[in-house]
């Protein structure tokens, strides 16, 4: 497929077709509905938090500070107990705590400790997938807070990056598109990834998302 046709495909997916059309248009409409459904589901989950309060300023308790210090040294796994304690102890829950825990849970699944010799810090996939389930749940909790467009876009982008790294490409693309709706800065990322999904052997490998 030529570069032009790839661009056209990208354009189709970026801007859902309107009105009646041929089979192609119908396919695009179904695709757009699917992506919109993902968006709606997310939005519903995020906005359904009954006692949503305005975003609280970060309250860096001792545990939170300790966690951040550990993360600075790439000790994600060690930061998790501090973050969990910070969440359970805080009186004023806020989005950043949950997002940070989610991101660090994800990062910890790839952590390698160096001594006595290099070995993965998390024992096996059983523990890693449990951590990822927890990370996703924490992402959803983070999304329950009332967020401005920047934070909402950022959350979608982070979730998309997690999904991309693990190989859930349709989830990643859906989340990138949702991020793009909130912040145009994610448009290129979504387009690049869609092109990669379309022709994984032709498109240049995109950057592997870094978390954090």
């Amino acid at each position: 497929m030529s570069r032009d046709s790839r661009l056209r495909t990208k354009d189709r997916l970026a801007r859902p077709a309107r009105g009646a059309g041929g089979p192609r248009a119908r396919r695009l409409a179904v695709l757009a509905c699917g992506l919109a459904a993902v968006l709606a589901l997310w939005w519903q989950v995020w906005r359904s938090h009954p006692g949503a309060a305005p975003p609280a300023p970060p309250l860096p308790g001792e545990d939170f500070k300790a966690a951040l210090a550990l993360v600075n040294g790439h000790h994600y796994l060690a930061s998790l107990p501090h973050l969990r304690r910070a969440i359970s102890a805080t009186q004023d829950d806020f989005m950043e705590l949950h997002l940070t825990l989610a991101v660090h849970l994800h990062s910890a699944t790839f952590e390698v400790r160096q001594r006595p010799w290099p070995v993965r810090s998390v024992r096996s996939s059983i523990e890693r997938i449990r951590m990822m389930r927890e990370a996703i749940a924490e992402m959803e909790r983070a999304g329950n807070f009332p967020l401005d467009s920047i934070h909402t876009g950022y959350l979608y982008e982070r979730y998309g990056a997690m999904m991309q790294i693990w190989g859930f490409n349709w989830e990643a693309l859906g989340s990138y598109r949702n991020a793009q709706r909130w912040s145009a800065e994610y448009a290129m990322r979504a387009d690049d990834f869609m092109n990669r999904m379309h022709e994984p052997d032709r498109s240049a490998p995109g950057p592997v998302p870094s978390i954090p």
Partner: protein
Amino acid sequence: LRHLGRIAAAFALIVLAPAVLAGCAGKPRPRVAFDPDQVPEAYAASTAALMWPGASRAFQITPAGDLFNGDWMVDIRASADAEPVGAPRAIAYEGRWMPVAHWVRRSGDVRWEFEAVALPSPPPRDTGLIVSLVARATNTGTKAHTARLELTIARPASAPLFVAFDAPEAPLPNRRWNGGGREPAYGWVDGGAADSTAAIAWSLGAGASRSARFVLPAYPTEARALGRWATKSHQNRADEVRDYWNREVAGGTAFTLHDPEVEDALRAALVVLLSCREQRGELWVPIGNPFQYRDVWLRDGARAVAALAVSGHGAVARDLARGLAELQWPNGPFLSQRGQLDGTGQALWAFEQSMLRSSPSDSIARYAEAALGAWRWNEWQRSLGRASGWRFGTMMPFGDPRDGELVTAQLVGNDAWMLAGYRSAVRLLRAAGRNAEAAAVESTRVAYLGDFVRLLNASGRRDIPPSWQGDGYDWGNLAAPWPCMVLPASDPHCAALAQRVWAEAGGTGLGTYGSSDSLHAYVAADLGTWALLAGRRAEADRVLEALLHWRSASGGAGEIFTRNGAYGTNLPPHATAAAALVSLVRNALVFDDGDSLQLTLGARERWWSHGQVLRAPTRWGSVDLDFDATPGEARWKWTPVPVWTTLTLPPGSRAASRPAPPLVLSESGETLLAPPGTGHAEIALARGTALAPGSATSEAIASRP
């Protein structure tokens, strides 16, 4: 005759009773002479595992004859009059399967014999193991020698081949043997040792022999507890191991084939599969190997579950399947390692393989529900892909498995496995009584399969490529003919794939991986079962022969190795290689993945001298099978099942006449068809196959729709 039988039984009781009573009293049984150097070893460097089910560490007996557990070495230095010992030729299990390890080293006239077994740690620890080791020095010369033996416990000087996940960062303490009171010890020897080395010296006259016993825990253990454990002799500990494994292996399907090599290989494979399990609380999970692959992969775990399920270890298989169920993501799919999207199909297949044999599990509803979630996820993907209009949009999205196909592409194997997962989901849902949902999944399976076949035909490839984009190493695509069975065995794509893969491996029966100089123990082993189903018995037998050959003296197979048997850093034994052997032998005798029961598909000639399979779990219940052949006749007796049974004639023979009704002779003349409820068949034989497997005529028949 009955009278003679009673006399024989009484005689056996009288003769054996003292031995049985001695065993009960804890007295060791007479030592059986065993020379490890007489055991075949396929690999350039012999190694063996001291492992135990549920333990989270294992000891490797290294090619040099030392021990390593991923945390510390037990460096064994021996000498006679300052002449050091050489490396052992082979580290062998008894009978090449029973995990009582033996190895011999020599220094001049002194022959050093080592024997080691692993047993679980005593409570409260339930994830450790303890090794009992005996070293025996024998002066085979005519003059006296001074024999010295030193066992040093230390961390390896450089990065080892594998690392225990819980190896602490802190260095080992100075005192490592018993002798320090209640302190944890890394080893026990009579009298203890003050530092890291236990040293013994003997003056051995001509023909004299001395031995020493060591106890080596996988984790530091209170010295007094080790001392208590050591009060039972090594011989008794070795007998415990023999009793345990005899009992474990006997608890599954019994194969009597008059083929000791195959029977021992099956036992060895089961020892590997049963040992490569870890616990997570109440859960059991399958691991890839006792050393460098102590992780959980769906692609390996599913194979282990299936192999255990078809070999009569159903309870273990179901426990492991329950462990794999932990790998389901909130959105529905199963994934163990990033980018390995074949996991969903493999998980569903493993559930079906284990939960439906010999009868549906009580907890089938849970697995049916999990399968439904996975199916919904993939149908959601397919709907988005269909809407995209992309050429391969209806297939699974690209994956970057960082293994296997080793390419970033849409992998054919992912779709083959997902289709297998759909088939399994249908069976699970039906077993759970959810017929409407089963029908819905089945209709989407047919549509998905249609898309798969259309794209394969449009690809212009004669075979089945690794990826829809065409690139990659052969991996998941090799599972498309079996166990995924996305194409009929007669489909020419399957034959072309097999021919290409086998040709690249030089006709060895195995496949290669990466380099053409390499051999891979299991990646192409599924083609053996495909060959059985396609009537290519000789080719299936070549695969089995290769699986039998490429085993260590301890009976395990590696993963990837050179044709010279060098495995590099990829230590045997590998659980998936063990599963491949179990599956192929079982399928050659009893195959139940299709709509009919197929018996003796690939039974070798010698198996026909009254072969017997007892307690084979199938989808239609537990099946016993007896089969035998004389030059003029073949006979089968089996447990009747409610579906048609296909009986394959002995190799090199054909039917000499029409069978008696209700049996029906197939058009090829090589199989008999028995209607549901039949349990006995016989037919007159003539020598010579009507159609040689692989011949043009055979191909033509095989490729009929």
